[in-house]
């Protein structure tokens, strides 16, 4: 790449009498950078590569290797305008943004020609370039940040998320039932079969019924034949024992079990009436 900086070195033994185009940090610049000439075909590609006037300006400033805080407005404006002119001559659709920037550069350049107000420390109070410099620095920062972001590992480009297959059908989903569902089912039955007069279910009856099941299960699990006293767990307390006993009597009444005693004071046995053991 032919850099402006190199051009300056080439031009170092510059001859008196040649009027420099501009001075950059006091150094005379006698010719436009050589690389300002761009083959027409390359022009479209090149301009495509610029993200707008700020990008183009940054490129020109970098090429000149100048302090961004002390931009030589005259050569910069000249260079910028020649690019814009090149775009125009190649019938490229020139974005308004480029023209706005051109106007701004020219305005800054002309304000620079006005006598400067100076304060004691010699600093420019109101540099017409200040706003441009601020924008250039901010854009440059974002441009680099964009580059950094692009370098970071990115999902789908640099790595894949893992999403292991889940075969839902392997999960057996069981229906849930709550006590209220059962009550509703039962009341539906009552309404349907008009059983309401015959099936008043009280808590007491229910508890006896539950113990009927428990006793049958107890007998089944113990070979269908258990000593009477072994059927009662004294730790459960009197009310439960009474219900348990009532349940046993109810089972005997329904002939589901037999309670036998061979003689007085001999052990009492409880046996499943069907005499079989269910597994």
């Amino acid at each position, binding site marked *: 790449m032919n850099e402006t900086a190199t051009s300056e070195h080439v031009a170092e033994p510059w001859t008196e009498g040649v009027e420099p185009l501009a001075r950059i940090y006091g150094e005379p610049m006698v010719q436009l950078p050589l690389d300002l000439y761009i083959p027409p075909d390359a022009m479209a590609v090149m301009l495509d590569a610029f993200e707008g006037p700020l990008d183009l300006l940054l490129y020109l400033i970098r090429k000149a290797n100048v302090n961004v805080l002390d931009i030589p407005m005259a050569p910069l404006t000249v260079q910028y305008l020649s690019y814009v002119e090149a775009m125009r001559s190649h019938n490229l659709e020139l974005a308004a943004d480029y023209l706005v920037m051109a106007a701004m550069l020219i305005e800054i350049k002309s304000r620079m020609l006005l006598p400067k107000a100076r304060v004691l420390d010699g600093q420019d109070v109101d540099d017409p370039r200040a706003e441009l410099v601020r924008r250039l620095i901010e854009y440059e920062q974002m441009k680099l940040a964009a580059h950094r972001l692009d370098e970071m590992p990115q999902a789908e480009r640099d790595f894949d998320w893992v999403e292991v297959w889940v075969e839902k059908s392997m999960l057996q989903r069981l229906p849930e039932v709550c006590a209220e569902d059962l009550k509703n089912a039962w009341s539906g*039955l009552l309404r349907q079969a008009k059983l309401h007069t015959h099936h008043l279910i009280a808590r007491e009856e229910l508890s006896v019924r539950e113990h009927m099941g428990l006793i049958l299960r107890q007998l089944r699990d113990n070979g269908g034949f258990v000593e009477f006293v072994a059927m009662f767990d004294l730790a459960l307390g009197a009310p439960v024992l009474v219900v348990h006993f009532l349940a046993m009597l109810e089972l005997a009444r329904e002939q589901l079990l037999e309670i036998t005693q061979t003689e007085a004071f001999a052990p009492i046995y409880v046996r499943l009436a069907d005499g079989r053991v269910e597994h």
Partner: protein
Amino acid sequence: MAELNTDSNSPKSPGELKRVLEAVLLAAQQPLSLSDLRKVFADEMGSDVLRVLLDELRLEWAERSLELAQLASGWRFRTRAEFLPYLERLNPEKPPKYSRAVLETLAIVAYRQPVTRGDIEDIRGVTVATQIIRVLEERGWIDVVGHRDTPGRPALLATTKKFLDDLGLRSVTELPPLEIMNQTLDLANAQENP
């Protein structure tokens, strides 16, 4: 394992090859066939070697949360069934519902236990399909507690402890009482049949 070294640029140990296979299979969106997997290694590995590596990989995962399944269209990692309930908690779906027949049968067993199938049919007024009883038995909610000493010795059904546990009840007596509701029903019936 001559094939492993045909790629002279990056000769890999079987361990490294398995890591590659694992990464590819874990990230894949569909089952990968042997030919897909050969592509992963730029067709420089024989199917026989691949098969050995896949089998070893499957064994490595045998005790873990996924299984490497060999399906018709190829190999694929999938979540083991035992972990699905945990996944379910993240995206709960509406559970299926039991049919009215199942619920009524369960209600009859719960409120009238122990009952025979005949009892249930008397109350419901229709034949009770074997399937209905089996659904409840397989759920572990009812079982046979004995047989009634009548012709045919029909089985007596009752609810189980698991039924109480699953419904969050300590005893059948905690089921909603029905006596008050019966009065309401009488009223409702009276209104229905003036």
